[in-house]
């Protein structure tokens, strides 16, 4: 570190059956790698006694003292009796302090075989997944009970918190959802037009856009954006509160974190997501309309007439019926992961990632289940 210090050195010789070690110069951290090699090469060489003469030592820091102490311990283990003298008073205090502490072995992890680690990892992962599923179901149960409790005791409802959450999760998401939905509408129309033109069925582009947007694209897009935008913020908010012990503070004040933190968020999203889905449907249909008018030489009224022939109320309701379920999934996973945060900033980051991945996964799985279910009912 300090460039102008004189680098330390060491001299050792055997004098009348006594090993004499004379450290010279500054024994500081910067010189330690070299000195360590020198010291390691010092052997008892049959001597029963060793003498460390510290009178020519320049400056020494705790790394240097540690090196002396380590060498002494090594020699003593080999049966050599070690004496020290000649240190300046300040240095003596330091060397004594380090020697008193001894040389604690650094913590190291036992050797592991990578195959064993792999199997262990798979097993631990499986058990973790099972536990996670069970905990999530537990939490779902708690949320349902919480809802019923709020019905029975309406004073538990927190209207201001609820409305603030609706604003954050719903109103503030409108620009991004509107823009993305509009563009997806345009993309669908262009792609559909290109393929359908080959069969001379360009007009069915409208049907393609209408049905796919209302049944799948609108709700799925909205759910994905909301999971990334809102689910993650739920986890980060609640997680940070958990780190600051705010959640514990709520409990000690006799407030249930479920009532104060979880239910307003879940309720807000269950209200906001269907509204956002409707808005997304409209934006995507507008996008599709704009593309159709440009591509197909249609007028706007023609597009609307074709659209009204192509889609029915049923398609719209199929899409909308998924919205509250997805909202419940996203909000619950977000809050659940937030409450699982323990102690550290790293844990907040990790669980926020996990929350988004999990809620996206659940949204897609449930969407697939819905598809199977609706095709069963011939809807």
């Amino acid at each position, binding site marked *: 570190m300090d460039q102008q210090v004189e680098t330390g050195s060491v001299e050792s010789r055997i004098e009348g059956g006594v090993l004499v070690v004379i450290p010279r110069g500054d024994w500081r*951290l910067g010189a330690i*790698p070299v000195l360590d090699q020198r010291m390691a090469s010092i052997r008892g060489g049959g001597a029963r006694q060793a003498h460390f003469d510290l009178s020519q030592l320049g400056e020494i820091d*705790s790394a240097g003292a540690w090196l002396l102490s380590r060498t002494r311990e090594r020699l003593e283990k080999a049966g050599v009796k070690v004496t020290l003298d000649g240190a300046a008073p300040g240095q003596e205090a*330091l060397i004594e302090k380090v020697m008193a502490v001894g040389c604690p072995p*650094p*913590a190291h992890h036992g050797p592991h075989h990578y195959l064993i680690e792999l199997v262990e990892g798979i097993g631990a992962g499986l058990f973790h997944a099972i536990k996670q599923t069970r905990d999530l179901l537990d939490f779902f149960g708690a949320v349902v009970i919480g809802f019923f409790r709020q019905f029975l005791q309406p004073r538990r409802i927190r209207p201001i918190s609820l409305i603030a959450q609706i604003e954050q999760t719903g109103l503030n998401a409108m620009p991004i959802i509107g823009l993305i939905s509009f563009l997806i509408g345009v993309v669908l129309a262009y792609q559909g037009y290109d393929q359908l033109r080959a069969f001379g069925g360009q007009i069915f582009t409208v049907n393609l856009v209408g049905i796919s947007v209302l049944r799948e694209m609108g709700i799925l897009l909205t759910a994905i954006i909301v999971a990334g935008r809102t689910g993650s913020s739920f986890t980060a908010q609640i997680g940070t509160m958990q780190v600051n012990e705010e959640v514990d503070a709520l409990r000690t004040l006799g407030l249930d974190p479920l009532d104060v933190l979880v239910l307003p968020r879940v309720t807000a999203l269950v209200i906001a997501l269907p509204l956002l889905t409707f808005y997304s449907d409209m934006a995507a249909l507008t996008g599709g309309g704009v593309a159709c008018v440009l591509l197909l030489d249609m007028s706007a009224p023609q597009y609307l007439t074709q659209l009204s022939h192509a889609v029915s109320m049923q398609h719209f309701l199929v899409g909308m019926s998924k919205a509250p379920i997805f909202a419940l999934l996203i909000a619950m996973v977000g809050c659940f992961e937030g409450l699982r945060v323990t102690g550290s900033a790293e844990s907040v980051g990790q669980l926020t990632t996990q929350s988004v991945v999990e809620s996206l996964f659940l949204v897609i799985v449930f969407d697939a289940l819905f598809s199977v279910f609706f095709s069963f009912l011939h809807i």
Partner: protein
Amino acid sequence: MNEPVIKVRGLVTRFGEQVVHDGLDLEVRHGEVLGVVGGSGSGKSVLLRTIVGLNHPAAGHIEVLGKSTQGLSDAQWRELEARWGVLFQSGALFSSLTVADNVKLPLKEHAHISAHMRAELAALKIAMVGLPPDSCSKFPSQLSGGMKKRAGLARALALDPELLFLDEPTAGLDPISAAAFDELIRSLQQSLGLTVFMVTHDLDSLTAICDRIAVLVDKKIKVDTMENLLGDPHPWIQAYFHGPRGRAARHVEASEPAP
């Protein structure tokens, strides 16, 4: 070695309209323990942060270890920073690293030594601050408040600094741990020959380990020994040292037999 370790001249610190320090002068001598006291919000921690370069002063001149902190190149800063250690109020351990890795981090950045040696030196530092060996592999969230401070101290001492900054080292510790921490700082200071700049509110630590006391009043600083400050007519200083807590701390100190 008679050069002061820290020299502050005419320091002015401002946050917007609010003036925290106005023409503050301070000198910290080599090898002393300086306790900095002052009312809440009087800018003790700000002073510490300004000296270590985390805040930029509006005016004034700061010299640490014989180098002016203004206008240093990045490399010079790094070199200077390796010569001091800072213990933050709550330890400020990196929560994603174990205690041993926290202590190893400065060694890794500033010293060119092997990984094995780093581990051994880190274990030494952790043992020196009085933490049990099994705490090496623990994460900060698994430690108590007092252990976090000790681990923070081990990290601050990792590079054997010449100068140690402590921000309220004993705040939030029980009296027994606080006394043990004072003892630890004292013994490390003596054996390592450190200069210590300590922000504290703990009157017991002030009387027990500080050579001189710096009082931050009226946006300036007054440095003197405990005895002289007791006779200072400034109302805040009077209230501080002659309040019930100040009297109690001094009383204990006086009735204790000299070691």
